[in-house]
């Protein structure tokens, strides 16, 4: 009997040690783990091992994302430049930051970040958590010091309570603030476009959309010697738009080469050095991250500087011979440098019909990603 009592006591001590001490006079249970669901056809996500997703952490991150407290004068939140209806990009060419200042690059959309390795148009942030730091301290965006934000959060009982529930701490720190926002951003998954539904066998693509997919995945016709609008290719020849070399094929749910930076021939002399600002490698001059085409219908204007308002303007760009700018993508410098794509009207229409299947309205209207301040 005594043995049983002793073992029971020991077990009780063990269990007691697992319970968190009450903090600030109030105790909370452990945060609820959030089960990240990898959509069909997506590869394993790149989730940080030191920041397990929790319901409370994500909710805290969502609030921080939409709270202008992150900016120096409490006027700009992350959501100002990453709006849900724009697939978390900005429909303005350049986003308006603190004190009415404007940046010089288009705001990038935010989704499927759990599969991204480098962030920003020039890839200067090697992790999502590091990325969050940049806009807060950018004098044109939020113009605030991270230390000041932490101080402001610590002064708000609501935030202290939320941090306590999410991370079991009494004090807000910069690391935990970044982790919370990181958690929210990681959960923003777009995987329910018509294309996704087709991949899952739930719907059919129309003949025109399928034709557009074929054009997307096919290299351009031999335009070095032939302008297909003057001398048509032989009957039955599929003329491609050669989108897939940079934007992937039907097996790539991201419709971007996440690893790639390219110069797509926008300018003979790029005014923005792009990737070279990070690598200092002159061969990266004028190269930018290849953006996803998913949700393109919401993410206008296009290109790193938002110079194109419509998808037709983008296609017009690829229809023209590329200027021989330094480091132009070799795939572009070849045949397309001579004539451009030269898609015929019905081919462009089909391509656009396919591209439309990449827009995911379920994502942009998902209540889980909307502002809690509404």
């Amino acid at each position: 009997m005594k043995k049983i009592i002793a073992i029971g006591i020991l077990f009780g001590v063990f269990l007691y040690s697992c319970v968190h001490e009450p903090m600030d006079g109030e105790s909370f249970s452990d945060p609820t783990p959030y089960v990240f669901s990898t959509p069909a056809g997506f590869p394993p996500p790149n989730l940080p091992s030191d920041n397990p997703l929790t319901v409370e952490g994500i909710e805290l991150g969502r609030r921080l994302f939409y709270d202008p407290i992150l900016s120096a004068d409490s006027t700009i939140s992350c959501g100002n430049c990453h709006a849900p209806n724009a697939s978390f990009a900005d429909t303005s060419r350049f986003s308006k930051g603190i004190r009415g200042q404007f940046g010089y690059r288009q705001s990038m959309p935010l989704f499927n970040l759990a599969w991204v390795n480098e962030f920003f148009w020039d890839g200067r942030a090697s992790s999502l958590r590091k990325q969050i730091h940049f806009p807060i301290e950018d004098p044109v965006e939020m113009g605030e010091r991270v230390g000041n934000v932490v101080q402001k959060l610590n002064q708000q009982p609501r935030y202290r309570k939320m941090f306590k529930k999410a991370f079991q701490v009494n004090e807000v720190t910069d690391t935990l603030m970044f982790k919370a926002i990181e958690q929210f951003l990681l959960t923003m998954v777009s995987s329910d476009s018509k294309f996704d539904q087709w991949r899952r066998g739930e719907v059919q693509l129309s003949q025109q959309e399928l034709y557009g997919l074929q054009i997307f995945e096919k290299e351009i016709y031999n335009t070095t010697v032939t302008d297909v609008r003057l001398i048509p290719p032989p009957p039955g020849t599929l003329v491609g738009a050669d989108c897939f070399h940079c934007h992937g094929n039907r097996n790539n749910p991201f419709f971007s080469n996440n690893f790639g930076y390219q110069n797509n021939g926008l300018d003979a002399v790029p005014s923005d050095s792009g990737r070279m600002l990070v690598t200092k490698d002159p061969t990266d001059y004028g190269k930018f991250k290849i953006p996803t085409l998913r949700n393109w219908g919401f993410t206008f204007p296009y290109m790193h500087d938002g110079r194109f308002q419509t998808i037709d303007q983008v296609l017009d760009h690829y229809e023209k011979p590329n200027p021989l700018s330094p480091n132009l993508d070799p795939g572009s410098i070849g045949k397309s440098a001579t004539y451009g794509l030269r898609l015929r009207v019905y081919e462009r229409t089909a391509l656009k019909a396919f591209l439309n299947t990449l827009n995911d309205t379920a994502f942009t209207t998902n209540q889980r990603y909307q502002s809690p301040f509404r």
Partner: protein
Amino acid sequence: MKKLVLLTLGVVLFFSSCRRKTGPDCCPPVEPVGSIEVHLNHLWGTDTIVRNSGKYVTANGDTVMISDIKGLISNFNLEFTDQTSFAVDDYFYYKLSNSSTNTLVLSGIPDGGYKKMGFFMGVDSTANHSDVTIYPRTSALSTYQAGGEMHWNWADGFIFTNITGNYRPANASRYKGFSFHLGMDQNLVKFSLPVPTFTISGDSRLVEINMDWKEMFESPNLINIASQEVTHSTSGDTLATRLSANMFNMVKIGSVK
């Protein structure tokens, strides 16, 4: 006193339950194994290739500047001096632009004397047509590595070898681009090369492989880039076949240390 003894016993029991089991019932004995570091030297003749700025002249008279070379190597097979062999079940993704990827580590190599090394430049048919999303992040075939750049950006399976750059024909003043994407099962290039005999005894050896890319442009098939600047190895594309055939002459075993 009894309580103290019981408590002590309890603590000991608790911690002992946390220890990993060892002994013959649990873990097989670990065989002493070595490793081989394979270093890829990307050359033009005897010169080390310098990306983008190095200008190299082919036998056809084209001046070539190489932007990057990317490729998959797999199915390493090591032949012992007694004719038996050992297969390395791993895939490797190298890029000229990323020096760290040009040293491939073959681990778990059994002790013995070796005289031959075989490998594929590309991947076997099974891997070539697999779903790339199944590979873990650490795999060379995963979408975070070759799967992203060499599979998703192509139509059929993996690109085995991807060489891109600019060139200027002998009679031209302006550079244009070229882009050779070699893939498809029929263009898999398989090597089995004699190596200076070496032994592994739980240690590591360095084997250098010299890849002379000049050969790809001229031997045995002389390539006139201007006649076809791009290949995606599509059916009936003879350039891909000719380039792949040239690759058989471009790989030589260098030193073994």
